[in-house]
């Protein structure tokens, strides 16, 4: 047994000094920014997520401002978490046959897999980029059309690709 170990065994203050040295080293490294910190100062600074990040869903709109969803329920069929609830109805607009009177997603059940987005034939539901959602009651995690299609974060940029004719239907036009 070495002399130092013998001394440590006898007196406690050596251990305290060693521990304080470790604390002090981390303190100085973090304070001066010599070492890159893994944490960020969250509300002021935000992490940059990948473009493919799947956050809270978005319901897209037609250029006229109506909801693009046709209430075909393919998203609800494809949903592995069974979290989409749709009530279809006859649209008040005579040019549209069917629309969702109720479109609700239960965020507590949702696993954010994006299968709804894949199933949608008219690009009506997309995975958005928002991930901050805090509520006091579980009930408030069931979000409806108001939040999905008209929340301020979207800045009304959620127009369905399906309703921009120059983007779609190109493949169906035959080249002669």
């Amino acid at each position, binding site marked *: 047994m070495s002399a130092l170990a013998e001394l440590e065994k006898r007196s406690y203050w050596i251990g305290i000094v060693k521990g304080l040295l470790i604390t002090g080293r981390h303190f100085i490294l973090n304070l001066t920014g010599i070492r890159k910190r893994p944490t960020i100062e969250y509300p002021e600074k935000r992490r940059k997520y990948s473009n493919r990040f799947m956050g809270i869903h978005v319901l897209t709109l037609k250029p006229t401002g109506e909801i693009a969803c*046709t209430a*075909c*329920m*393919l998203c609800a*069929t494809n949903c592995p978490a069974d979290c989409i609830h749709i009530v279809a*109805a*006859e649209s008040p607009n005579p040019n549209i*046959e*069917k629309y969702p009177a109720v479109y609700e997603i239960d965020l507590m059940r949702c696993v954010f897999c994006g299968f709804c987005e894949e199933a949608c034939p*008219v690009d009506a539901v997309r995975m958005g980029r928002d991930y901050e959602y805090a509520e006091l009651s579980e009930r408030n995690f069931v979000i409806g059309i108001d939040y999905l299609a008209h929340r301020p974060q979207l800045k009304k940029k959620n127009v369905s690709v399906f309703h921009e004719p120059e983007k779609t239907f190109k493949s169906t036009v035959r080249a002669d």
Partner: protein
Amino acid sequence: MAKVKINGKDFEVPTGQNLVDAAENLGIDIPHYCYHPGLSIAGQCRMCYVEQPGNSKLQIACNMKCSDGLEVITDSPKVKDAVKWSLEFHLINHPIDCPICDQAGECGLQDYYMEVGKYSSEMREHKQIKQKAVDLGEKIVLDKERCILCGRCVRFTQEVSKTSELGIYNRGDRSVIGTVNDEVMKDNYQVNTVDICPVGALTSKDFRFEQRVWFLKEVSSVCNGCSAGCNIDTHHKSGKHIYRLKPRYNPEVNEYWMCDDGRPTYKTANYDHRLTAAKLGGVELPTNEAVTTWMNDLRTLIATERTDEIAAWIHPDLTSEEITSIVKTLRDEFGISQFYSEDADKSARDDKTVDQLLKRADLWCNTQGFLKVTSALKLKLGSLNQLEERLAQAKINHLVIFGSEKNVGVQSLKRIRAALPADCFTVLISPRLQNAELFSHSLAIPSISHYEKNGTIMNWKKIEQKLGSDFRMFKSAWSVEEILTSLSQEYQRPQKEVSRA
């Protein structure tokens, strides 16, 4: 029997049977739209092409009867190619709006496209634009774009309902289904056209947009609308909600059809109309406690030998098993002698066909079974007038009412309610909320609705038919047999000594 050869294999089928049906029974699928076994042959859709050796032209199977020596091939490349192009012709003007079409999931076009189609369209012309969501009838909606003009609905109104209301108007790709002067169809069998429509052109207003068909499960049952006893399939979603009824083939009773009055009978089984929890004077309590409460009152009357003050009201909508169980428990076990019911004799006597087709005048579904069981059990039944009289004389202290879920039973219940003295202990066993509201002061025990029942009912032809449900919509709603078994167990359970003080 005829010996036929299909795809090189020998089969024996009944002579004269249609080839499409015969092949379907043998597990060989021949695509078809216009052919329906309950209707005449039109040969319009050209989907059921088969090849006959020695005949250079393809033939349509729906126009072939099975006879000895018939030899056809249904899966040769020539046949498949012909069917594929037939399908493309059907789809030339079809909008392919499957996402908003109610037929998606049970659509002939979808099925056969996946089976024999799978081409990319060769058409360069624009599709014909026609009217959508046309109000064709009181209960049906027509989408003229989706129609493939198979003519099944037209033949149905000509041959089965015999109203001849529908026809095909205009020519070529402008042909549409319609009525004369665009009148609204008033046929009482019009929703059958929705069932036989192979595409989503005709949809039922009641079911329109309600639910996608792939969420629904089918359970075979029998309609409780009248004494005809049409065989049906109940379409429900995970045992929580019934969405529609569809006729099921039974050559002895209803063939392929049912009337429109029978279709909405499922509505009383759904949440809005159901008594979902036992209630005592409007306060909810668990069903088993409700049975105990009932037994407590019944026990005092039985113990003091006042069973002549107890009466029971039954009706001919109960299944034969339910009536047997009521009589065995209440009469044989508890010694109740007074049973009153709707006049089943009269409704059986007055029973006649309303429209020469299916619907009958007797609105009770088990009148014949009721008469058979009550006479076999030698049950003495009083009439409604007699019950009212006894109630007016205040000779009844305990009344058990088995309330029907149908509107036809409400009138009698209202009369009983009016005659009921305030101090009479009333037990209502019914699936219907409206009945419980009528007897709001009484003990109401929820029972299961007709479409959740397992049992036997007998139609006017005295054909016994099974109800084979496998779902229960509410845990608190028990079947009549379960309620009575629980009651009798409660009766036999040894009672704690009443305090001796």
